[in-house]
C-alpha cells in the first residue's frame, strides 16, 4: 500500500440525529512541487521518455478534439481526458499488448495509450470510415480488436461486468492475460460495480479495476453523491486487494498497476485501484463547469501530471529542454496529420447503415 496517502482528515457532517462522525477521508496529498521521485526511475530512458510522450500526445490530442468540436467537426458528446493522463498512461504501460483494456466514454487517452493510432481515433471522432470503429461508434465507443481495446462504454458502470467477463474468459482458457477496467468514481454507486467485485473475488478473476476518482460525476461532487468517500475502502466488502494511488503521478500509477498485474497474472486475483485525479475540462464539451471554482481547478493544475513528470525527468537528466521541444514538435505534427487523415477519410458508405446489426443476419 505504498501509494496510500496517510492524511486522514476527520470530517464532520451533520446527520439527522445531530452532529456525528463523518467518514474518514483520505484526501489528496497536499499539493507540492514533487512528482515522481528519482528512486522511482528504474526504467530505461526510452521507457520513461515514452511515458511522457504518451501523456503529452493525449494532452495535445484532446486540445485538438476540443477545437475540432467547437468547429463542428465532432458531434454528439465529447468527454476529454485532460488532467487525467497519468492514470491511463501509467496503468496501461504496466500491461502487455495482448492484455485487455475496457473503459468508459472518457476513453480517447486510453485508446491512444493502448496503441490505437491518433489517425484512427480522430477519424472515429469525425465519424469517418477510417475510424477505429468505422465511424459507427464515435467518441464514446472506440474499439480495436487488434490491440485488445474492448471499447468505450457509455452507460455509467456498464463496462465493469463486461471486464469481469473478459477476465473470466482468460481464466477459462488458461491464458495469463489480464484485464484493465477503467471507470469514474460515479460508477462506484452503480450496482454493476458491486456485483462485479463480488463475482471477481468469488471466482478469483484476473481483473484490475481502476477507479479514476476525478471528484465529479458530471456536475455532482463526490461529497454529494457517496456516503463513504474512499472508493478503495469499498474493496474490503468483497475482500479484494486495493490501493489508493496518486493519479497525478505516472510512475505511481505504473507501479501500483504492476503490483496488481502481478497479482492477477500469478495468482489470478482481482485488485481495485483508486486513482485520485482531476479533470480540468467540463464533464463533456457542453458543460460550462459552474459547479466548481477556477481556484479549485488551479489548485489541481499545480500538480499537473505532465508538468510533474517533465520536471522529474529533467532533474534526473533523462530529458533536456531540446528533447522536450523536439517531442512537442513531433507530437504537433502527429496531431495535424491525424486531423488531415480524419478530414480526408470518407464518410461511411450509406450501405453501412444496415451492416453489423447481426453477424449472421
Amino acid at each position, binding site marked *: 500500500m505504498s501509494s496510500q496517502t496517510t492524511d486522514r482528515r476527520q470530517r464532520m457532517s451533520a446527520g439527522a440525529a445531530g452532529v456525528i462522525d463523518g467518514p474518514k477521508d483520505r484526501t489528496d496529498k497536499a499539493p507540492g512541487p514533487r512528482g515522481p521521485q528519482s528512486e522511482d526511475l528504474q526504467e530505461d530512458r526510452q521507457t520513461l521518455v515514452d511515458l511522457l510522450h504518451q501523456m503529452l500526445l493525449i494532452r495535445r490530442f484532446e486540445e485538438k478534439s476540443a477545437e475540432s468540436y467547437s468547429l463542428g467537426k465532432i458531434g454528439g458528446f465529447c468527454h476529454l481526458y485532460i488532467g487525467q493522463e497519468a492514470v491511463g498512461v501509467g496503468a496501461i504501460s504496466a500491461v502487455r499488448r495482448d492484455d485487455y483494456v475496457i473503459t468508459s466514454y472518457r476513453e480517447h487517452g486510453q485508446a491512444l495509450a493502448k496503441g490505437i493510432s491518433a489517425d484512427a481515433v480522430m477519424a472515429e471522432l469525425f465519424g469517418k470510415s477510417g475510424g477505429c470503429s*468505422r465511424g459507427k*461508434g464515435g467518441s464514446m465507443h472506440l474499439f480495436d480488436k487488434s490491440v485488445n481495446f474492448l471499447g468505450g462504454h457509455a452507460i455509467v458502470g456498464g463496462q465493469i461486468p*463486461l471486464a469481469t467477463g473478459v477476465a473470466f*474468459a482468460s481464466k477459462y482458457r488458461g491464458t495469463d492475460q489480464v484485464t484493465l477496467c477503467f471507470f469514474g468514481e460515479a460508477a462506484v454507486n452503480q450496482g454493476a460495480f458491486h456485483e462485479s467485485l463480488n*463475482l471477481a473475488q468469488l471466482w478469483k478473476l484476473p481483473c484490475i479495476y481502476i477507479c479514476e476518482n476525478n471528484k465529479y460525476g458530471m456536475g455532482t461532487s463526490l461529497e454529494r453523491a457517496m456516503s463513504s468517500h474512499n472508493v478503495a475502502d469499498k474493496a474490503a466488502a468483497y475482500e479484494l486487494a486495493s490501493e489508493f494511488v496518486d493519479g497525478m503521478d505516472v510512475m505511481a500509477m505504473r507501479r501500483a498497476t504492476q503490483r496488481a498485474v502481478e497479482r492477477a497474472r500469478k495468482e489470478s486475483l482481482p485488485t481495485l485501484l483508486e486513482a485520485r485525479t482531476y479533470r480540468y475540462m467540463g464533464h463533456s464539451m457542453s458543460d460550462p463547469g459552474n459547479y466548481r471554482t477556477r481556484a479549485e481547478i488551479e489548485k489541481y493544475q499545480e500538480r499537473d501530471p505532465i508538468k510533474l513528470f517533465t520536471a522529474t525527468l529533467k532533474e534526473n537528466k533523462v530529458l533536456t529542454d531540446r528533447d522536450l521541444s523536439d517531442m512537442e514538435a513531433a507530437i504537433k505534427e502527429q496531431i495535424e496529420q491525424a486531423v488531415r487523415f480524419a478530414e480526408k477519410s470518407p464518410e461511411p458508405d450509406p450501405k453501412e447503415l444496415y451492416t*453489423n446489426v*447481426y453477424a449472421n443476419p
Partner: protein
Amino acid sequence: MAVMTMRDALNQALREELARDGDVFLMGEEVAEYQGAYKVTRGLLEAFGPKRVIDTPVTELGFAGLGVGAAMAGLRPIVEFMTFNFSILATDQIINSAAKMLYMSGGQFNIPIVFRGPGGSAYQVSSQHSQALESWYAYCPGLKVVMPSTPADAKGLLKSAIRDDDPVIFIEQERMYGMKGEVPEDEDFTIPLGVAEVKRAGTDATIVARSLMVPAALKAAAELEKAGVSCEVIDPRTIRPLDIDAIVASVKKTNRVVVAEESHPFCGVGAEISAEINERAFDYLDAPVKRVSAAYVPMPYAKNLEQLAIPGFEQIVAAVREVSYLD
C-alpha cells in the same frame, strides 16, 4: 426419434452442445448443484464439471454482463435466467451491451451468447413471476428472439441458438416443460432460426401462434374442423428474425387470419404481425386481422382471475368464427 418432455429435449440440446464445443459454458442461478430450478440442467454438472456448468450468486446484471464480456473474448456462454422475469434486472447488459456491441464496434465484436430460461405465464405465481417479455427484446436491433412450442423445436432451435454468432433470447414456456413429443436424437439435428413451420395445414383461416398458444391453436383448429372451418396453424418459432413471408403466404391462401399470443396486445408481437399483414396482404384479406392476447393487466393471483387474463382455445375459436363471419 424418442418421446420426451420439452425439459429433457432442452437438456439434450445443452448436453450435446457442451460436448461439441469447449468454448460453450452454462451459468445461472441453481443450474449446477441444485440441478436447475426447473430441472432443465439436470446432470450437466456431473457430466461437464464446475468449470463448464457454473452456479452464480443472485446477481442478474452482474452475470449477464460477465457473460457478454466472456463472449467479447471469444467464449460462447449460455446464461440461464431462473425466469425471464429476472432478466429485467439485466436489461442494461442485454440491450446496451450484447445487442449493440457488433454495431458500435464497426463489426469487430460479435456476441455469441444465449440468454435462456422460462417465460410467459406460470401457475398462480402472480404479477412479478408471470409475464411475457418477448416484445421488449424483439424491439431491439441486434437481438434474436426464439420461442419454441414443441420438444423437437426446443431442441433444434436451442442447438442453433448456441451455434449462432449473435445474442439470442431463448424463451421457454414455463407451463410447457412437461409437454411430451417426438424428438430426433441425431446430434446434427438443428432447426434454423427464422423459419416458420406450418403446424397444421388448412384452407379457410390462418392462426398465427407461438409458444403456449400453439397447442391452444391446434385444439381450436380441431374444434373448428367440426364446424366445417379448416384452419392453418403457423408457428413463426423465432420472433427475430421473423418469417413474415411464410405468414403472408398462408394469409394469401386462406384470406382470414387470427394472431394468438399470451402477451399483452399493446405494442406486442401480434400488433407487429398484424401491421405486416396489412402492409403486405391487405388486398387478400376477407376480414380485418384479429388478435387474441392476454388481458392488459398485471397477472393476478386468484385462479379464476388468472384464467381470465390468459387467452385459451375458446377465445381463438371465437376469433376465427368472427373473422369467418360465422356468428
